[in-house]
C-alpha cells in the first residue's frame, strides 16, 4: 500500500500550500488581488477556468485512485489473465463530448474578454487620456501628447477612467505589465504599435514589470503606476505643465549641479516635455520613490548611481560621461529638488507605495 | 536484397512500351497546356488587365500548373503514391497556413 499512500502525501502538502498562498502576494503586485478593470476581468476568467480544471482533475483522480486500489495485482494473482477488452464506444463518446462542452463553457467568456480588452471605441470620447508608452533598455518613457507633458518611470493615471496606451519600443521587445491592474502587452520596435488600456479602481502605487526578456537588466526594468483621484491627476498635469526647465535652484550646490548636469547629462536626459530620448526624462525626478526603478530614492544612492550605474543595472545604456564625485553630489542636489508637484507616489491615499 | 527481376516475354514488353508511350503523350499535352497558361499569365500582366481580376487568376493558373507537375510529371496520379500524396497535401496545408499568417498577422 505504500505506493499510493506515498502519492497522496504530496497532494496533501499541496492543499496546505494552496490555502497558505491564497492569502499571500503583495497588494500592489499580485494578479490575484486585482485593483483595476483588466485584472479583475481576468481573475474572473481564471476562476472559471480553474473551476473547470478542478472538476476535470477530480474526475481523473477519482478513477485513477479507484483503479489503483481495486486492480492492483495481489499475492497469488500472478497468473491471472484479465479479460482483454477492446474498448467501448459509448465511453469514448462520453469523454469526447463532455470535454468539448466544458471547453465551450470556457471559450465563450475567453472570446468575450479578449474583445473587451481590445475595445477602443470609448477612446473617441472627448477627454479620454492617451499615453504614449515607449519601452527602452531598461526604462520606460511616458508621453502625454494631448497634455504636452512627459515623464519616465512613473506613470500617473486617474482612477475610475480608461487611460489608453499607445505602445512601442525604441530597441528590443519589452512587455508592459502591471499585474494588479491589467494584463501585459508587448512593445515592439518599428511601426508595430500596440494599444491597450488601464483602468484603476483604487488609488495606489502599483508595481510594474517588464515581462519580455530584453537583455541583462530585464529583471530590473521596473516601473510604477501611480493611480490618483481625478482632481489630483488634474493637479499633477498642471504642475507638470508649469515646470520651467531652466528654473534656477535655491541652494548653491544645486546651482552648480545644474551646470554640471547641463554639461554632462543633457545629451541624454531631458527636463521638461520631451519625446523618448536616450535616457529617462528627469523633469519630476524629485518626486520619484525609486531611482532607475529599483534603488531607494535618496541622495546617497543617487550619487552611487551616477558614479557607476552599471553596478546596479548591468548592461544599461548610461555611459560615456565623466563627472567627479563632487560634481555627482551637486548634480544629486539639483535632481533631488526637481519636485514640482504635490502629487507624488508618497502622497497617494492609503498608499501601498511604500515599496 | 531481394531483387525480383521478372522475366518478361517480348509481348508483354511491347504492351508496356505502348502504355509508356500513351502516358508520354499525356505528358506532352500537359506540357503544352502549361506553356499556354504561362503565356496567358505573362500576357495578362503585360497587357495591364484590371488588378482585381488579375491576382486571383494568376494564382489560379499557377495552382493548376503545379497540379500538372505533381500529378502528371511527378506521377502522383499513379498507383503507389498514397503516402506521397498524403504528405504533399499535409505540407501544402501547413504551407498555406504559414503564408496566410505572413500576409495578415505579421502586421495588419
Amino acid at each position, binding site marked *: 500500500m505504500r505506493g499510493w499512500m506515498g502519492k497522496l502525501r504530496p497532494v496533501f502538502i499541496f492543499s496546505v500550500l494552496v490555502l497558505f498562498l491564497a492569502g499571500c502576494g503583495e497588494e500592489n503586485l499580485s494578479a490575484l488581488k486585482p485593483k483595476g478593470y483588466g485584472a479583475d476581468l481576468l481573475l474572473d476568467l481564471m476562476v472559471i477556468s480553474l473551476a473547470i480544471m478542478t472538476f476535470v482533475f477530480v474526475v481523473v483522480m477519482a478513477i485513477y485512485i479507484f483503479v489503483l486500489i481495486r486492480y492492483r495485482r495481489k499475492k497469488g494473482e500472478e497468473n491471472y489473465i484479465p479479460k482483454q477488452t477492446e474498448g467501448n464506444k459509448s465511453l469514448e463518446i462520453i469523454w469526447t463530448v463532455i470535454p468539448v462542452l466544458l471547453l465551450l463553457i470556457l471559450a465563450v467568456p475567453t472570446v468575450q474578454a479578449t474583445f473587451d480588452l481590445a475595445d477602443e471605441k470609448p477612446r473617441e470620447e472627448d477627454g479620454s487620456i492617451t499615453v504614449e508608452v515607449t519601452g527602452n533598455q531598461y526604462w520606460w518613457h511616458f508621453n502625454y501628447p494631448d497634455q504636452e507633458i512627459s515623464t519616465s518611470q512613473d506613470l500617473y493615471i486617474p482612477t475610475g477612467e480608461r487611460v489608453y496606451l499607445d505602445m512601442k519600443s525604441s530597441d528590443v521587445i519589452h512587455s508592459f505589465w502591471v499585474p494588479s491592474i491589467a494584463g501585459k502587452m508587448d512593445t515592439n520596435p518599428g511601426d508595430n504599435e500596440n494599444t491597450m488600456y488601464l483602468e484603476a479602481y483604487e488609488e495606489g502605487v502599483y508595481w510594474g514589470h517588464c515581462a519580455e526578456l530584453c537583455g541583462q537588466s530585464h529583471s530590473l526594468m521596473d516601473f510604477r503606476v501611480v493611480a490618483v483621484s481625478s482632481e489630483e491627476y488634474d493637479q499633477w498635469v498642471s504642475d507638470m505643465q508649469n515646470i520651467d526647465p531652466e528654473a534656477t535652484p535655491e541652494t548653491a550646490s544645486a546651482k552648480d549641479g545644474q551646470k554640471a548636469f547641463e554639461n554632462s547629462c543633457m545629451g541624454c536626459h531631458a527636463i521638461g516635455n520631451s519625446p523618448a530620448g536616450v535616457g529617462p526624462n528627469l523633469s519630476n525626478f524629485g518626486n520619484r520613490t525609486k531611482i532607475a526603478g529599483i534603488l531607494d530614492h535618496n541622495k546617497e544612492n543617487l550619487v552611487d548611481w551616477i558614479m557607476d550605474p552599471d553596478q546596479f543595472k548591468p548592461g544599461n545604456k548610461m555611459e560615456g560621461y565623466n563627472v567627479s564625485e563632487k560634481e555627482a553630489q551637486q548634480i544629486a542636489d539639483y535632481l533631488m529638488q526637481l519636485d514640482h508637484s504635490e502629487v507624488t507616489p508618497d502622497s497617494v491615499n492609503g498608499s501601498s507605495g511604500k515599496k | *536484397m*531481394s*531483387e*525480383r*527481376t*521478372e*522475366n*518478361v516475354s517480348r509481348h508483354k*514488353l511491347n504492351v*508496356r*512500351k505502348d502504355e*509508356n508511350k500513351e*502516358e*508520354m503523350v499525356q*505528358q*506532352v499535352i500537359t*506540357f503544352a497546356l*502549361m*506553356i499556354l497558361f*504561362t503565356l496567358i*499569365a*505573362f500576357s495578362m*500582366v*503585360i497587357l495591364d488587365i484590371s*488588378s482585381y481580376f*488579375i*491576382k486571383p487568376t*494568376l*494564382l489560379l*493558373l*499557377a495552382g493548376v*500548373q*503545379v497540379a500538372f*507537375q*505533381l500529378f502528371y*510529371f*511527378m506521377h502522383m496520379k499513379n498507383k*503507389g*503514391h498514397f*503516402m*506521397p500524396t498524403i*504528405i*504533399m497535401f*499535409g*505540407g*501544402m496545408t*501547413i*504551407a*498555406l497556413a*504559414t*503564408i496566410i*499568417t*505572413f*500576409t495578415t498577422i*505579421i502586421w495588419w
Partner: protein
Amino acid sequence: MSHDDVLNPKHMPHDPEKATLEGKNKFVGFWMFLGGETVLFASLFGTYLALSGSTSGDNTPENLFGLELVFIMTMLLLTSSLTSVYAMYHMKNHNFKKMQLWLGVTVLLGLGFLGCEIYEFYHYIHEYGFTFRSSAFGSGFYTLVGFHGGHVLFGLFWITSLMIRNQKRGLNLYNAPKFYISSLYWHFIDVVWVFIFTVVYLLGKVG
C-alpha cells in the same frame, strides 16, 4: 547477384525505380523530403511577402523586374521539366542511351536558367545598386530566389554526377531509383519556380 550487373531490358521490371526495397525506400523517402521542402519554401515565400513592401528608394518590384528575362527563364525551366520526363520515359523503356541524352538536355537547359539568373542578379546589383543588404525587400528577394537558384545548382550537380558515374555501366536496379528521384527533385524545382514567377515577378509587377 551484384548491383553492377547491367540489366538488359528483358530483366527489367516495370518500375525499375521501385523494384527493390532500397529503391522503394528512396522513392518514399524522397517524397517525404519534398513534403518538408514545401514547408521550407512556404516559410521563405511568407517572409518575402511580408517584406516585399519594405523597399528603399526606387528599387520597388515594379521598377526592378523585367518580364522578358523572367519569361525566358520560365520557358527554359519548364522545358527542362519536360526533357527530364522524357528521360524517365526512356528509363522505363530501358533505353539507357536515350535517357542519358535527355538528361543531358535537361542539364543544359538548367544551366541556361542559372546563367540568366546570375545575369539578373548581377544586373540588379550593378545597374540599380539593389542588393541583399539594401532593404528588407532586398533581403527577402535574394533569399527566396537565391534558395531556389541554389536548388537548381544542386540539382545540376546531382544529375551530372549520376550521369558520369553510370556512364559506363548503364542502367540497373541500384541506380534506377537514383535517377528517378533526381528527376523528381528537378520537377519540384520547377514547381517552386512556378510560384516564384507568379508571386514574385508577375504579382510584383501588378503591385
